[in-house]
């Protein structure tokens, strides 16, 4: 098996072109899946016998929360790769992830609050999952703030990579906090490896949304990646063609 495809991923011009080509392959399926999930979740799925129509918030809350964790993990892995093997493209991936993750962490917190108030009587509680999700938001903001505060791109890349890797302990804490501590949050009903305990008509739109959001992340990442790759390039030759296109 040749590893050339892997080595090519370290080459900025190759990555730039590949990202441009792949974006629609992530973007359009994402749009279809999200629209399908919205239709299934808002219209087709029956009301929950306990929560009525209010449960439909899950179709935006769960994907947002999933995004907040998945994006951070991607960011941390890319940062670690960039730090260990000194690959600029990896740092570019990490930098691209942060704004996406931060915005969906915020969405997760807000949608969670809107779900919590009618169902469990409170917008907010300082239980382990909510608190560590809030910590995650601060980690994203700290990451972006550190990058902004360092002018030298290489130092910014490496310093923020250390931060991303140090902060990744928070991700399993968020995920497992509902099993480690008894608190307000629900026990996992979808992410269990055994059969999920939700009815199919409710579960399928959720899975569509989760997949759709994931592909959406891919599309946005690819767009941002191109810009970040450009930011790190000094050599003129391949940029000249791109810029004058």
């Amino acid at each position, binding site marked *: 098996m040749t590893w050339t495809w892997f080595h090519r991923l370290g080459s900025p011009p190759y990555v730039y072109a590949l990202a441009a080509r792949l974006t629609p392959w992530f973007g359009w399926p994402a749009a279809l899946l999200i629209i399908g999930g919205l239709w299934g979740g808002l219209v087709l799925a029956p009301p929950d016998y306990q929560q009525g129509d209010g449960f439909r918030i899950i179709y935006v809350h769960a994907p*947002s929360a999933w995004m907040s964790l998945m994006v951070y993990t991607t960011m941390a892995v890319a940062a670690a790769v960039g730090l260990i093997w000194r690959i600029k493209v990896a740092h570019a991936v990490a930098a691209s992830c942060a*704004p996406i993750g931060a915005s969906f962490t915020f969405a997760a917190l807000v*949608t969670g609050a*809107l779900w919590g108030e009618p169902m469990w009587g409170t917008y907010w509680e300082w239980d382990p999952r909510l608190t560590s999700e809030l910590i995650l938001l601060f980690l994203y903001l700290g990451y972006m703030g550190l990058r902004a505060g360092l002018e030298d791109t290489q130092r910014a890349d490496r310093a923020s990579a250390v931060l991303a890797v140090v902060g990744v302990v928070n991700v399993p804490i968020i995920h497992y906090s509902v099993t480690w501590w008894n608190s307000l949050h629900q026990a996992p009903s979808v992410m269990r490896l055994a059969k999920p305990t939700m009815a199919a008509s409710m579960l399928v739109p959720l899975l569509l949304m989760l997949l759709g959001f994931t592909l959406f992340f891919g599309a946005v990442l690819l*767009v941002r990646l*191109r810009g970040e790759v450009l*930011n790190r390039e000094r050599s003129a030759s391949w*940029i000249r063609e791109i810029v004058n296109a």
Partner: protein
Amino acid sequence: MSQFLEMGGYAAFVWPAYAVTLGAIVLNIVWARRALARSREEARRRLAMRGEGA
């Protein structure tokens, strides 16, 4: 239709939640495209300063 909008009485919570999330989606699209455009502009300016642009 009105039952759909009412969301069984939870409309004040469900619709803002959807609005915030879809807002996040739109924001990400706009933000990413703007960032890419800015990077291209910077790259062009860097090339021009070095006199190598076409």
